[in-house]
């Protein structure tokens, strides 16, 4: 048994306590008084420094565990290999690309890929990376040069703090195909025909991807504001983007014109 200090959310309050963690279970002392077998954990996710686990006993109970990174890492390393999930041994490279830029120091790490209800985990000895399903943008079978040979890998693109990140998974081809099919099924709701946007719409969407604002987009594509607005509406209606800010264009009233005229006089005198 290893004792680790944590805070656990209980009855909408954070309780300071110590978890007793063994190979296959952990015990939460009073007032919660609960023994959790890792094999009964249905879901594991992470938000900043909070580990969220869903445990199936008679009903599903969600525990939020807050602690320092070192403790959370210890818990993840214990829980993820035993929890109720689709799991396979694999090599992974995460992140391999961030914002379109290849990460030069990225290396293949030996570990496992764990697919739980809410996301995908890359579990290595040093790092455990969580990718929520809701943040997954694309899953693709592609080829990568591995030890001088073009090798099939799965590329998973996802959003991490607004940045598009790509991670790669490498394992035997038969397992790779099973994992690919599984992940594709999980993200099926995002599948589209690919013909929803035409030339100019696609260019606008690509500029949004690159971080261009509406002003820059209008200038770059020489688009009238009204047309850009219509394209934005189309992209929004397809669920491909969301509104983050509404800019306003204003025109001075006679009162405003007088104010500015007076202000200019004061400045020039």
């Amino acid at each position, binding site marked *: 048994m290893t004792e680790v200090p944590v805070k656990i959310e209980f009855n909408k309050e954070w309780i300071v306590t110590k978890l007793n963690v063994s190979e296959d279970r952990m015990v939460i002392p009073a007032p919660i008084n609960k023994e959790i077998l890792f094999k009964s954990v249905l879901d594991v996710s992470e938000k900043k420094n909070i580990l969220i686990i869903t445990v199936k006993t008679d009903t599903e109970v969600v525990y939020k565990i807050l602690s320092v990174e070192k403790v959370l890492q210890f818990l993840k390393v214990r829980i993820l290999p035993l929890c109720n999930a689709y799991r396979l041994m694999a090599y992974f490279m995460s992140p391999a*690309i*961030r*914002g*379109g*830029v*290849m990460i*030069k120091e990225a290396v293949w790490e030996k570990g496992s890929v764990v697919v739980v209800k809410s996301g995908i985990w890359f579990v290595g000895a040093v790092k455990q990376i969580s990718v929520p399903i809701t943040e997954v943008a694309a899953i*693709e079978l*592609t*080829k*990568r*040069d591995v030890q001088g040979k*073009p090798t099939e890998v799965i590329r998973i693109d996802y959003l991490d703090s607004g*940045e*598009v990140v*790509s991670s790669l998974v490498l394992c035997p081809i038969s397992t790779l195909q099973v994992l690919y099919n599984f992940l594709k099924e999980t993200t099926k709701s995002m599948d589209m025909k690919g013909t929803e946007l035409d030339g100019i719409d696609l*260019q606008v969407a*690509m*500029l949004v*991807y*690159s*971080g*261009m604002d509406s002003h*820059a987009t209008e200038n*770059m594509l020489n688009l009238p504001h009204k047309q850009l607005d219509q394209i934005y509406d189309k992209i929004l209606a397809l669920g491909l983007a969301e509104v983050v800010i509404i800019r306003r264009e204003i025109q001075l009233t006679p009162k405003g014109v007088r104010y500015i005229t007076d202000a200019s006089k004061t400045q020039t005198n």
Partner: protein
Amino acid sequence: MGKILIVDDTLFMRTLIKNILFTGGHSIAGEAGDGEEAIAKYKELKPDLVTMDVVMPKMNGIEALKGIIAIDPAAKIIMCTAVGQEQMVKLAIKSGAKGYIVKPFQAPKVLEEVKNVLAT
């Protein structure tokens, strides 16, 4: 901040990269639409850095990269290619590329890569 030559066969991508670089405070030395033009412009303009598309007509980006490195072994070139062509990375790096970006890309990361390569 650097003086940058943008090489890409599509006007849209050149305009996008140009805008991103402007927002980062860089100046544009020039633009080229294929590999042959890139080599000619490099000789003429002596830019601090080149962003080079891989798939282009006449002469592709890898050939142009080799051509520029033959003229100036210290040339700083960032290769730029579409998703799915990442296997070109090894060849490009072996041929002398200092960085590699994959389309579509996000402006802050491109500027970070440009800054890193300029600092080498």
